[in-house]
């Protein structure tokens, strides 16, 4: 079977900024060799702290910046010389949105749609992302989450094969987050290559098929979340995830040494040094409450542990 062509290939990407006045006019190398691939039908996450080079990497892939070294191929072409036909196959959501504040949201979406030959029906997309509720307010009156949803709609309206989402969860309230994350999973199921950046480990954990960790302008680790959190010299399990009905709260005295959180409705994660008796206590509690999980998984490390190991510091 032939290997499918990746939607995006970046090999040894180098990018310099400057000259910087504060550094006596020297250039600053912000990307020192980023390499990654993104395929169709998968969510590829660029994870890293602020300043790691995620946005610059995306901008080189989108053709907004020209690479100073290395190779960037987007759908087999050079994005810095993108034709309108190539741009029509690629959707972009910028970190700062790129939205004109004085325009009404749906007017902007209609305008962006008019740049494409066969755009999605604007009204259906607007309804799906809850944009119709903004009414006649101009963009400057929208909340951060509302602007994010509008920017996402603008990225998707042209029926792209590849979408770049720079920090898509920034400023999202929990409800918007669920809408946006569900949509991202749907895009993946539709066969799109979704490439997104985040500095939030939870986003990566929840969405990523494949993660690249960026640090100091380099890709320092890559793999599926399962690959990255698997540990050769594991001294036990440190993370337990389960899915079941939403809204459960474990009594604090049940597993006091474990940190518990409900990531999104019905998806729970417990972190800390896990023992077999912890699992037994948990199972007893489920049984007593009449709850049966639909999925359970354990990992020797959390993505947070992985990041800490690699960079020697916490991501936040």
């Amino acid at each position: 079977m032939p290997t499918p062509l990746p939607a995006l290939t970046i090999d040894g990407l180098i990018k310099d900024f400057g000259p910087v006045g504060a550094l006596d006019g020297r250039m600053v190398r912000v990307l020192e060799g980023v390499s990654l691939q993104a395929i169709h039908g998968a969510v590829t996450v660029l994870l890293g702290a602020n300043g790691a080079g995620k946005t610059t990497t995306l901008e080189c892939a989108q053709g907004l910046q020209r690479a100073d070294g290395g190779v960037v191929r987007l759908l087999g072409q050079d994005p810095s010389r993108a034709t309108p036909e190539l741009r029509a196959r690629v959707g972009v959501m910028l970190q700062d949105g790129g939205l004109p504040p004085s325009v009404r949201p749906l007017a902007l979406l209609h305008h962006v749609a008019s740049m494409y030959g066969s755009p999605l029906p604007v009204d259906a997309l607007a309804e799906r992302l809850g944009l119709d509720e903004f009414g006649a307010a101009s963009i400057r009156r929208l909340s951060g989450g509302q602007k994010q949803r509008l920017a996402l709609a603008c990225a998707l309206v042209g029926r792209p094969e590849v979408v770049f989402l720079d920090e898509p969860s920034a400023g999202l309230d929990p409800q918007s987050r669920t809408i946006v994350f569900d949509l991202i999973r749907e895009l993946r199921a539709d066969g799109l290559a979704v490439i997104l950046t985040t500095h939030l480990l939870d986003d990566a954990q929840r969405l990523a098929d494949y993660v690249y960790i960026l640090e100091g302008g380099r890709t320092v680790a890559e793999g599926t979340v399962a690959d990255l959190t698997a540990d050769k010299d594991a001294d036990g399990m440190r993370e337990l995830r389960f899915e079941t009905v939403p809204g459960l709260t474990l009594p604090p005295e049940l597993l006091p040494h474990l940190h518990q959180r409900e990531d999104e409705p019905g998806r729970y994660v417990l972190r800390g040094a896990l023992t077999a008796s912890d699992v037994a206590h948990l199972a007893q509690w489920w049984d007593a409450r009449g709850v049966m999980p639909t999925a359970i998984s354990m990992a020797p490390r959390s993505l947070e542990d992985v990041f800490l190991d690699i960079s020697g510091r916490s991501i936040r």
Partner: protein
Amino acid sequence: MTAAATPARTPGTAAALPVRVLRHGGYEALAMLRNGEQLVLAIVLPLLALTALVITPLLDAYGPSRVDIAAPGVLALCTMSTAFTGQGIATGFDRRYGVLRFLSTTPLGRSGLILGKAVAVAAVLAVQLVVIGGAAVLLGWSPRAEGLLPAALLLLIGSAAFTALGLLVAGTLRPEATLAVTNLVWILLAAAGGVIIPAASLPAAAEPFVAVLPSAALGDGLRSALADGVLDPIACLVLLAWAALAGLAAIRWFKWS
């Protein structure tokens, strides 16, 4: 190819180039005409200037009919307000908000954005020509018929030169600075740049400097065309030179982000 490699949906295609450019031009023109401050700059101030020049004796030294001297200058003023000040400010803030970067990732692209802006400037200028020209006709303006074609040519080159200058300012300065600079330059050129008062009537020491300004070339050129019915070749060349220089400078120094 595997199923996962071939997206099972209608692939994205681009609208045709003229459609993209005209849609964007219309969108920007409407935005300019809906903006209150821009409307004041584009319509209200030129109308006030026209009225003031017709009811005061300011231009009596330059010809028998006040309105015949005033109207071409006010049209030059309109070109500056729309192509330079209005478009420069809009572009400066679009750059700040990342709108230029976002739109350049759509099939519109950077070249489509620039072409769309040119269309928007032309559309707003057409509205100004109808409103201001109409008002001037009501005030007794009778432009020379043989001067209409030369005037159209000068307006075309002049709006290209001022659009390029506006983009140069908007693409190199912060939007607040663009706002200040484009307004200040507009006022200075309107007052002493040969737009309304012919360059030849300025103090002798200033005249050669003012005559090579794009404002004087456009103002004097339009007066020659519409009042005397002749094409001023020097004015044409000066405007062409400004359009070329400012265009090259904008291409060289314009920052998209």
